[in-house]
């Protein structure tokens, strides 16, 4: 336990390191390409455009209102799903580092989430583009993006840390997680508006933690207020999840280097 408290202290000390890790990772993607990480934004934009045209017709609505749903949805979802997906490999891929230097493991997770936050910032261009095209003025609800994104990030930190630890020990889980995320992408109201689900199945959304994490980022992006229920879920998850992950980390920390 002491070692883990020590790790947390050292992680704070190494703030410059993990900020640099995330930043340098993004910067590296700009190297020798014209668009760098913006390619990711562009691909998301193309995807929204094509999806939007088809699905707007399937859902019998107009492109504008569907794009207004889909764009913030995907921008928020890509952050959450990437945190979990890349979390599976966050320790696995760091074998050389871990076996070379006595590094507190959370440094790597924070580096990852910071990198994804920077990528998320790139994706905000899509939101801005949408607002310009449809002449939507920004509103006050958008300011909630700051606490919303922060709370989702805190949740992403423990989720990435947890799957990172699990996947280091049991490599098969990595595949299971990627299947799980694929399923979650359709089970969670990312592509479809939540109002469309049958009332008898409403619980499937209500008790989906990813839905609430999505909401507190997506709604401010769309200029709407998330429900208080969303905040409570996310706050509760942040506390319970962080605590559980902390205890698990404390239990296995001594053995993690042996799992490589």
């Amino acid at each position, binding site marked *: 336990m002491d*070692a883990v408290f020590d790790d947390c202290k050292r992680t704070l*000390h*190494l703030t*410059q*390191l993990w900020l*640099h890790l995330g930043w*340098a990772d993004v910067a*590296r993607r700009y*190297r020798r390409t014209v668009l760098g990480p913006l390619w990711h934004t562009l691909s998301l934009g193309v995807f929204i455009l094509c999806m939007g045209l088809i699905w707007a017709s399937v859902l019998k609505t107009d492109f504008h209102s569907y794009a207004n749903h889909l764009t913030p949805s995907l921008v928020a979802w890509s952050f959450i799903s990437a945190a979990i997906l890349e979390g599976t490999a966050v320790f696995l891929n760091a074998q*050389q*580092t*871990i*076996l*070379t*230097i*006595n*590094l507190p493991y959370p440094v790597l997770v924070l580096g990852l989430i910071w990198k994804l936050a920077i990528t998320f910032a790139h994706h905000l261009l899509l939101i801005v583009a949408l607002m310009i095209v449809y002449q939507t003025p920004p509103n006050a609800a958008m300011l909630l993006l700051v606490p919303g994104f922060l709370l989702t990030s805190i949740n992403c930190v423990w989720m990435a840390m947890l799957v990172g630890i699990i996947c280091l020990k049991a490599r098969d889980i990595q595949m299971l997680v990627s299947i799980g995320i694929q399923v979650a992408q359709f089970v969670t109201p990312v592509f479809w508006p939540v109002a469309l689900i049958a009332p008898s199945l409403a619980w499937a959304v209500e008790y989906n933690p990813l839905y609430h994490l999505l909401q507190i980022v997506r709604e401010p992006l769309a200029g709407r207020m998330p429900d208080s229920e969303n905040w409570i879920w996310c706050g509760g998850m942040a506390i319970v999840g962080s605590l559980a992950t902390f205890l698990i980390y404390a239990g296995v*920390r*001594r*053995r993690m*280097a*042996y799992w490589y």
Partner: protein
Amino acid sequence: MAFIKLNDVSVEFSVRVGVGRALRGFVRRAGGEIDRKAGIVHALNDISIEINKGERVGLIGHNGAGKSTLLRTMSGIYAPKKGTIEINGNISALFHASAGMEPDDTGYQNIVNCGLFLGMTKKEVLAKVDEIAKFSGLGEYLDMPVRVYSAGMGMRLSFSIATSINPQILLVDEALGTGDAQFADKAQKRIVDLAERSSILVMASHSPGLLSAICNRGIFLEQGRIMADGPITEVIAAYHQSVAESAASDDEESGMRMLQLVRESVQRGETVPIHIEELALWHAIKLSVGDPAMLQRLCKLLSEQGKDVPVDLEIETLEAVLKIRPNEKASIERLEELRKIKREMLVIS
């Protein structure tokens, strides 16, 4: 004041995960004793060491003796299964890889990458960049991506960064071998310098020459156990002795090990104990059949030691020599003579 204390430290690797393939991977990295039934590699067994300031410790031992595992345990990477470790002082480690070294980043960028991993702030790193760059002697290469560096250049950069933080404890794993002679000298001086400023050096290597040049204390590891601990010259002598003993048992692997030992020593221009060179050569001539230089050297060593040169060996040597210089009269005559002796010996038996 810097110190390292290990009390009864044991480290084991569990290799239950998919035995066959995984087992081999673990053994390569960890070495030590393998307990196949339980699926456990005992990499370090009841190690107790106390290292105090000013000591420059050389870890010597064969591949898989536990040198790297011991260094990693000292740096806090592996928590011991049993026993306790006390460390006082900031540690810098120079292992095969450097934490933070990104092949696509330039040398300068990597100074920042690695410096931050070592716990420096960005400001501290930037203040040291010039000094690190100068010591590395890499000049304009520092503006190029590290992936174009040779192994030696990469090592120079890593070494310059790792020692720039003035660590109180410097752990080095084999890394010094790759640089050129000029840099190796500079590096040696810097290490001795660091150690003199009340820090500790622990360095693993198979090459006795390098260790005896730098270290003042030696620890000889074998299968995760300490075989000898004391003044470096004594420990190296014990190591040579053990190599010689195992080579005398005539199995392929220990012969190779011996050969490697001698080759490394000769490359550095050191003298090798004569009986060890002899043993190594016996293995060498089996590997490269008909090499006249090796055969001649072996005959010379035998006669220098006052041992008889076996007839077969001398015949083989002369035949090899005559292949390159067919007109050497003395050799032809001696060969005739020897063949006659051999025929007579055959008749008698």
